[in-house]
């Protein structure tokens, strides 16, 4: 074992590989921070280039790129309310209000620390506990996943909306939009209106760029018009506004830890993904908080929670990949290609056939988490300078980037049309107090709930008893019921307290 570790270290810990990881993080956080562009795009573009490079170098770079972009997205989410990556959608809910209060620096640093803690947590899990976690992940079949997604839907439904009814409207709209495309079970066309481009469903990234970024440009453009001049964001003179004090970090540690655990769990389950993790992280913090009414108005924990969760997905998504040959997330699937191109077939034999490569990779991953503490710092500075540019100059550039980003992922012009459509829709949603974030998460969770529910019923031959007889499924079903009851109770108590005043 020690031999393997030493060999792994000598193979992995070279200047060349460090450079790969650092380059990946830099590229990822840069592209992630630019609204419209994102890390998945970068990874897809980089894959063919990595053909000729060594496996450790290229995988360290790709994973670095992924992690960097997951963090980078929060920079624009906080500064512009335009999340650079889908994972950062939840971060903008409290990050942007903080920035408006002049505490942009504080929010950015908190996001960074939470991201790094989440990432380290997840990589350590990958290194020390991969086999048992993989075994746990396998216990989740269609029935268990259906109930887990139901639970997640109840937890996150309506996030970011002005009222519960508006939250539910946003959620329903998201689930409705998700039904466009081929029926997942029968493969018949639904709401495609004869367009083959809609057969694959509405492209998530294109929709997201429209819904979250372009809509924000429209909203702020209108504000600029009304104010008759474009005003740069105020910056607080208080030095504490641009850094995180030890006390604040300590107060957030519990939230960060719970989020990391949630994120790692979502990452290890194939197909649950980092966007779900970020929202689950945010909502666990909000629901367990003593001051839930402060969330959405600039609560620091509301920045820490989603960022810890979405970064904790990365390492954990590699757990089923290296132990079972099953990637835990979309980006992990692309990274699986990088393994394969280099003749490392992912799966149970990977650890026994190439232990030095795998342990070397683990070491590189953990080390690169610490690079993440340093590399994005200049970007933060740059970002804060960018928002001091008058909005009249800034927004046209962002709009162009939106078009490039929507086109870039699949090089399909249809996606640009999707982006524009959702940009306009997002503008009206925001005007009406509906929540684009709630729509987005419902769009992601809705189809999962449908597929797993129908698969489970196929397995049971149509009997819903499958959700009660399987212990894990029953557990999540009960948790869902408890969650609804608890929410109702808190609301009543809240109303009672308000009436007493």
């Amino acid at each position, binding site marked *: 074992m020690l031999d393997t570790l030493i060999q792994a270290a000598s193979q992995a810990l070279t200047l060349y590989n460090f450079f790969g990881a650092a380059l990946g993080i830099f590229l990822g956080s840069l592209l992630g921070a630019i609204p419209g562009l994102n890390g998945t795009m970068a990874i897809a573009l980089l894959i063919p280039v990595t053909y000729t490079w060594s496996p450790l170098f290229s995988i360290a770079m790709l994973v670095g790129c992924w992690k960097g972009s997951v963090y980078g997205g929060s920079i624009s989410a906080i500064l512009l309310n335009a999340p650079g990556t889908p994972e950062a959608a939840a971060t903008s809910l409290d990050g942007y209000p903080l920035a408006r209060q002049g505490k942009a620096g504080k929010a950015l640093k908190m996001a960074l620390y939470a991201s790094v803690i989440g990432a380290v947590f997840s990589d350590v899990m990958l290194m020390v506990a991969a086999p048992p976690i993989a075994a746990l992940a396998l216990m989740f079949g269609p029935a268990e996943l259906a109930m887990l997604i139901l639970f997640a839907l109840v937890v996150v439904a309506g996030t970011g909306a002005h009222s519960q009814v508006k939250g539910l409207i946003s959620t329903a709209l998201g689930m409705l939009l998700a039904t466009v495309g081929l029926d997942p079970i029968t*493969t018949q066309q639904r709401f495609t209106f004869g367009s083959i481009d809609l057969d694959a469903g509405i492209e998530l990234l294109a929709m997201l760029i429209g819904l979250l970024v372009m809509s924000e440009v429209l909203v702020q453009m209108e504000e600029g018009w009304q104010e008759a001049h474009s005003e740069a964001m105020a910056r607080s003179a208080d030095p504490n506004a641009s850094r995180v004090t030890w006390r604040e970090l300590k107060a957030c540690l519990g939230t960060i830890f719970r989020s990391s655990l949630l994120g790692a769990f979502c990452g290890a389950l194939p197909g649950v993904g980092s966007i779900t993790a970020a929202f689950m992280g945010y909502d666990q913090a909000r629901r367990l908080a003593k001051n839930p009414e402060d969330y959405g108005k600039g609560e620091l924990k509301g920045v820490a929670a989603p960022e810890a969760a979405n970064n904790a997905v990365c390492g954990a998504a590699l757990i089923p990949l290296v132990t*079972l040959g099953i990637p835990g997330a979309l980006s992990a699937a*692309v990274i*699986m*290609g990088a393994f394969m191109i280099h003749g490392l077939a992912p799966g149970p034999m990977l650890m026994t056939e190439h232990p030095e490569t795998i342990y070397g990779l683990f070491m590189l991953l953990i080390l690169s988490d610490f690079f993440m503490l340093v590399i994005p710092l200049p970007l933060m500075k740059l970002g804060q300078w960018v928002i001091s540019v008058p909005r009249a100059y800034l927004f046209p550039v962002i709009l162009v980037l939106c078009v490039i980003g929507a086109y870039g992922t699949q090089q399909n012009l249809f996606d640009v049309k999707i982006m524009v459509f959702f940009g306009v829709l997002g503008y009206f949603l925001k005007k009406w107090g509906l929540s684009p974030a709630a729509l987005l998460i419902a769009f992601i969770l809705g189809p999962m709930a449908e597929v797993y529910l129908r698969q489970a019923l*196929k397995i049971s031959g149509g009997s819903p008893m499958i959700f009660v007889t399987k212990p894990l499924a029953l557990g999540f079903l009960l948790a869902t019921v408890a969650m609804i009851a608890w929410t109702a109770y808190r609301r009543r108590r809240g109303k009672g307290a308000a009436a007493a005043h």
Partner: protein
Amino acid sequence: MRTKIWAALLCLALVGVLAGGALAKGYPNKPIKFIINFSAGGTTDVAARLMAAKATETLKQALVCMNRPGAGGTLGVSEVARAKPNGYLIGTCNMPAVAIIPLIREVPYKPYKDLVQVCAVMPYEYALMVRGDAPWKTWEDFAAYVKKNPGKVTYGSVGTGTTNHLITARIGKEMGLDWKHVPFQGGVKETAALLGGHVDMINNTTASVASSIRAGKIRVLLVTSEDRLSLCPEVPTMKEKGFKFSQISYMSIVAPGGTPQAVLDKLSAAFKLATADKGVLEACAKLDLHPKFMPGKQYQALLQQLSAEWGKLLPELGVKAKK
């Protein structure tokens, strides 16, 4: 003035005609767009890129790879069908996108008119598999168990209307097996469900689970492809077990219908070299992929025969066919 314009237009037209004639001779004189109809990182993508790199050397023009995944491969294929038939936009193609899916739902191309098969380059290798710790050691064991427990056994596929689903359903029909089909969205989730014990058996490509097979986590019961597999040479094929059909699906190269024969020949020759190249074969073998060349005309005929066969069988297997 008017005559001058006409003369100029005539000249332009002439140049166009001449250029068209010269096209095949000088082909290719610019990079070729190469649409891969599955997502980056999968087995199709990796094999296609390896071959494209080799074909680039032969043709002395770059094959620029672009992934256009989705809708069972039909999205990428439809893009090729829409392109100008000049050989500068070609792509990969899977069997169902041409021979099966057009029978089930509307697709914006006529599979044998808007597309022409340049050549087939790699057969996918399929098998029926169970968990390594399952009680069934052979296909006979398993079939006997299904017979004894009607309506109890479940099998997974990568989706309704895929060869994985249809071949397994056809086996069930011939043997009178009463089992339940569970369609998953892709091989990854299908494999996870098998390993977790949520379905009893799956039909999947062997290359994608090679590592699990070697580790004994997955046991292959029956090879549904035509020939035995190097990954598990001891497992018999379904032909050996007396079935009259097998799971045939190649990755092929397609061009828009109406592409000049000379262009098709050049492309076909380049891919033939790529499928025989030592470097390509070695890189593929590491992933348990085995490229094999088949001329375009022969493959096209095979596809048409498969279309006719499935057209008759789909309703019997309970798949709703397009009206």
